[in-house]
């Protein structure tokens, strides 16, 4: 069946939406003050940002999206009250090779453990494979982000690369995992 009725941007409890330049910077700035979150999300140094700095980042981001055409950014919001929950991103898309990198973050601690991440990943993968027609997606995760590793495995991702001792944090070295999901495996998984 040719399914265009199922909404791409509406999940069970969440929806994808555009950036709200007035309301979002303050909320995202709060997330950057949570070093645990920042270290799960990024290998770059965690650092607290002000709302004004986040606002500037959003502007840069939208400019980049417009110019590079290989980047999709979705704000994840609660359907119930529309509050900002996190972000879902597909970046570094190589159109000629049909691949891209995905990133997902649930910003506030009280929004974690509610299955929002799984819903967002399901929507993001459908967008990547059924709308952008990518052949594969890649996700890079530090070994200490056990929740992300479990989520990716649940969705049928394969651990393809172990970049041994690539990260330095808390005075020790950590592995960085590269996960991949191919379109066929996604289809099998989505139909099962």
């Amino acid at each position, binding site marked *: 069946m040719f399914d265009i009725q199922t909404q791409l941007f509406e999940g069970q409890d969440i929806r994808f939406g555009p950036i709200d330049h007035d309301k979002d910077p303050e909320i995202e700035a709060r997330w950057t003050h949570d070093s645990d979150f920042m270290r799960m999300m990024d290998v770059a140094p965690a650092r607290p940002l002000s709302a004004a700095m986040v606002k500037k980042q959003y502007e840069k981001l939208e400019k980049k999206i417009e110019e590079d055409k290989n980047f999709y950014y979705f704000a994840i919001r609660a359907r119930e009250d529309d509050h900002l929950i996190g972000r879902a991103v597909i970046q570094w898309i190589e159109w000629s090779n049909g691949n891209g990198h995905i990133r997902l973050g649930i910003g506030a601690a009280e929004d974690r453990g509610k299955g929002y991440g799984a819903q967002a990943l399901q929507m993001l993968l459908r967008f990547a494979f059924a709308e952008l027609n990518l052949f594969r997606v890649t996700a890079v995760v530090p070994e200490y982000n056990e929740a992300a590793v479990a989520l990716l495995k649940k969705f049928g991702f394969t651990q393809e690369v172990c970049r041994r001792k690539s990260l330095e944090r808390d005075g020790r070295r950590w592995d960085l995992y590269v996960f*991949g999901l191919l379109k066929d495996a996604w289809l099998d998984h989505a139909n099962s």
Partner: protein
Amino acid sequence: MKELFYGELVRLSLGEPEAYVRAEVRWQRDSEFVRLAGGNLELPSEKKIKEWAEKRIEEGPQPWRYSFDIRSLADDRLIGFLGLWVDLMHSEGWVGIGIGERDAWSKGFGTDTMKICLRYAFWELGLQRVSLGLHEYNPRARRAYEKAGFQMEGRTRKDILREGKRTDTLWMGILREEWLALQNGEKA
């Protein structure tokens, strides 16, 4: 102290950009070379390549980027380039080597260059790890990297579509302690 920039077959240097720019224009026309090296087949103009080189000069030496010309010791000919990009927070280097002169392929220049590069990365820059990626269809590069001490760490499956076929990207890495053990083994 060791002479850091000399190997057995090649030396690392950095000259005035003119020679490099002229060579690079020629190398970029060689689609086999560019496809092996992993670049984009954009056929940049001499003016464009010159601008890139001049921009690097203008920015001056950066602690996160080290670029070298590769010259053969026998005839001091420019045969390729080496780039090393450093993640300062995690003490990791990413390396890329291109031997643009076709008659310099399969003669051990790449292996020799990589050995110099690793010595520089671990002994001079104090890195904890050096990483690289290469195409599955480039077994010559893989052999050179293995000879220099790199371990295979995995492959991103079918991420490149080339000539109608899906092919993997391979990812390799070498840890500081592995490289040090190799040095001790070679001396013993």
